[in-house]
C-alpha cells in the first residue's frame, strides 16, 4: 500500500517534470501572443531525434547531446518563428491551428523518411541506468535524474522570470500586451526569445523522453495532447500554472495507470476536463 503510494508519487513526479519541461515554453508563448502552437510536439520530437543522432552517429555523450539539442533546436526554431509564426500574430486561432498542423505533418513525414516509422531507443550512460538507493528504497536512477533536471530548470526559470528584467518584461507583456508595447517593450523580440527557449526546452524534453517512451515520428501528435492539457489546465502564460498543471496531470496519469490498469488511461483526461469545466482559464489563469 505504502509502496504503491511512494511509487505513484515518485513516478508521477518524474512524469510531471517531463511534462513541465516540454510544456513551459508552449505556455509562455501562448500567454504572450495567444498563439495556438500545435507544432510544439514536433519540436520535442525533433529534439529526440537530434539526441539520437548526435549520440549514435557522432558518439557525443548523453548529457552533451542534451545540451547540443537544446541549443540547436532553440536556434533553429527562430527561423520558423520569424518566417512562419510571425505572419499569424493576431490572426484567428483557426489559421494558427491549420498552419501548425501543417508543420507537424511535414515534420512527421520528414522524420519518417529519414528515420523510418519504427521505435528508436538510445543507450543511456551506466550511471543513469541502474537503481539508486534513497532512504532504504531503491529508485530507478533515470527518473531521479529526470526529477533533478526538472528541479534545476524550475529554479532557473523562476530566477529568469522573477528576478531578471527580461522576465519582468515577459510578465508585463503576458499581463497586458498593449500596455507593455506602449511603454516601449519590444514584444516581438520577447516572443522570439521565449519561443526559442521554449522550443529548446521542448527539444530537451524530447531527448529526455526517449528512455521513458521510445521515439517514433508520431511522438509529435501523441504527446502533443498532454502538453496542451498541461497548458490549458495550468493557465497559459504562467510558470507556476504550468508546474501545477504538470504536477496534477502527471500524478493523475500515473495514479490512474497504477490503480486502474486499463481504465487508468482515462484519468489524465477526466481530471483535465473536470478542471477545465470548473476553471476554463486554468488553475493560474485569469478569467
Amino acid at each position, binding site marked *: 500500500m505504502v509502496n504503491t503510494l511512494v511509487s505513484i508519487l515518485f513516478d508521477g513526479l518524474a512524469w510531471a517534470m517531463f511534462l513541465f519541461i516540454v510544456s513551459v515554453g508552449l505556455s509562455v508563448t501562448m500567454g504572450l501572443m495567444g498563439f495556438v502552437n500545435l507544432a510544439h510536439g514536433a519540436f520535442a520530437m525533433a529534439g529526440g531525434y537530434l539526441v539520437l543522432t548526435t549520440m549514435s552517429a557522432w558518439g557525443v555523450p548523453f548529457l552533451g547531446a542534451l545540451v547540443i539539442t537544446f541549443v540547436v533546436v532553440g536556434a533553429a526554431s527562430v527561423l520558423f518563428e520569424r518566417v512562419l509564426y510571425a505572419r499569424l500574430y493576431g*490572426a484567428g*486561432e483557426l*489559421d494558427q491551428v*491549420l498552419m501548425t498542423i501543417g508543420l507537424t505533418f511535414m515534420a512527421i513525414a520528414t522524420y519518417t523518411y529519414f528515420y523510418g516509422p519504427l521505435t528508436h531507443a538510445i543507450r543511456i550512460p551506466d550511471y543513469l541506468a541502474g537503481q539508486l538507493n534513497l532512504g532504504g528504497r531503491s529508485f530507478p536512477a533515470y527518473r531521479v535524474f529526470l526529477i533533478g533536471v526538472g528541479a534545476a530548470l524550475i529554479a532557473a526559470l523562476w530566477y529568469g522570470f522573477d528576478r531578471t528584467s527580461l522576465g519582468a518584461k515577459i510578465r508585463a507583456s503576458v499581463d497586458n500586451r498593449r500596455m507593455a508595447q506602449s511603454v516601449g517593450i519590444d514584444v516581438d523580440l520577447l516572443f522570439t526569445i521565449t519561443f526559442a527557449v521554449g522550443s529548446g526546452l521542448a527539444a530537451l524534453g524530447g531527448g529526455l523522453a526517449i528512455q521513458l517512451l521510445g521515439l517514433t515520428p508520431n511522438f509529435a501528435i501523441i504527446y502533443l495532447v498532454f502538453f496542451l492539457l498541461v*497548458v490549458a489546465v495550468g493557465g497559459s502564460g504562467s510558470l507556476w500554472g504550468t508546474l501545477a498543471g504538470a504536477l496534477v496531470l502527471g500524478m493523475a496519469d500515473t495514479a490512474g495507470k497504477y490503480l486502474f490498469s486499463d481504465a487508468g488511461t482515462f484519468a489524465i483526461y477526466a481530471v483535465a476536463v473536470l478542471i477545465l469545466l470548473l476553471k476554463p482559464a486554468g488553475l493560474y489563469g485569469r478569467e
Partner: protein
Amino acid sequence: MDASKSRPAPAGGESTVARAGVADFLVRRSRFRPAEALPWIAAIAAFFIFPSQMVLGGQTLIMILFALSLDLILGYAGIVTLGHAAFFGLGAYGASLLITDLGWSEPVSGLLAGALIAAIAGFLSGWLLLRYRGLAFLVLTLSVTIMLQQLGNLFRDFTGGYDGIPGVNVAPLFGRFDYDIYGHTYYLYCLGVLLIVFYCVRRIVYSPFGQALVGIRENIGRMNALGSPVHWRLVVVYTISAAVAGIAGALFAQTNAFVTLGVFDFDQSAAVLIMLILGGAGWLYGGFIGAALYMVLQNELAKASPEFWQFGIGLLLIGVVLFVRRGTLGRVLNVSRLLQARTQP
C-alpha cells in the same frame, strides 16, 4: 407581436420598386443557381467515366458529407473544434453495432441510428462545452474524442478495440439492390444520402436561424446584446452537425463493412478540417472541392510514398493559410462567387 403598429413611419422619397429590389436579394440568394448543379453533374459523370474507381468515389462522397457537417459549425457558426471525429466515430459504431450486436442490418435505419447516437453526444457535449472558447474549447473537444476512443478500447469485447468489428454486412438497399464489389451500388447510395442531407443543410444555412449563426460568427458580443440565445443556437447547430457527421460515419462503416477505433484518431479530425479549408469554409461547396482533391491526391501520392503525401498535405496547408486565406490569391481565386449568392442586388 404586431410589427406594423410600432413600425417607424417611412420618411418617403424612396420608391417601393427600390424597396422590392433590396428585399429581393435576400429572397434570391437562397434560390438554386444553375452553377450549383455542377458538382452533382460531376458526381454523376464520374460514375460513368470512372466505373472502376467507385470505391474511392464512395469514400470521397462520405468525406464530402463529413466536411459538410464541419462547415455548418466552422464555416457558418465559427466554431473551431479539434474533435469532430468523435461524431463520425460514434455514427460508425452506432451503425456497426446495430448490425453485429442487434442483428438489424437494414441500411437506412443504420444511418438513422448513427445520426441519433451522434446527435445525442453532440447535444450533451455541446451543451457542456460550447460555453468555453479558445484554448479551453480546443483542448476539451480533443480530450473528449480521445476519451471516447479509450472507452471503446476499454470495452473491446464489445467494440473490437483497435482490431475493429469485422462483418458489418448490411442488407440490400430497400431490400432490392445488392452491393457489387466495384462499389457501384454504394456510390449511388452515398450520392443519394449526400443529396438529401445537403438539401437540408442548405435550407438551414439560408434560414433566419442560419443568418443568426453567421451573426454569431461575425460578432458574438453584439448577438448577446441583441438578446440572442447564443448558447442554444450553437448547441442546436452543433447537434445537427454531429448528426450529419454521424450519418457520414455510419455510411463509412456500412460501405467498408468494417470499423476500428482509428475513426476517433486526431488525424481524422485534422483531415476533415484540412479538406474543408482546402475547398473553403462557409459556402457549402468547400467540402466537395476539398474532399475530392484530398482523396484523389491521397490515393495517388500515398501509393507512391506515404511520407511524400503527408509532407505534401502539410505544405499545401501552410500555403493555403499564408497565401490563400490571408493573401490576395484568396480574393482572386474566390471560386465561391460562382456558386454563392451575390451580395449586390
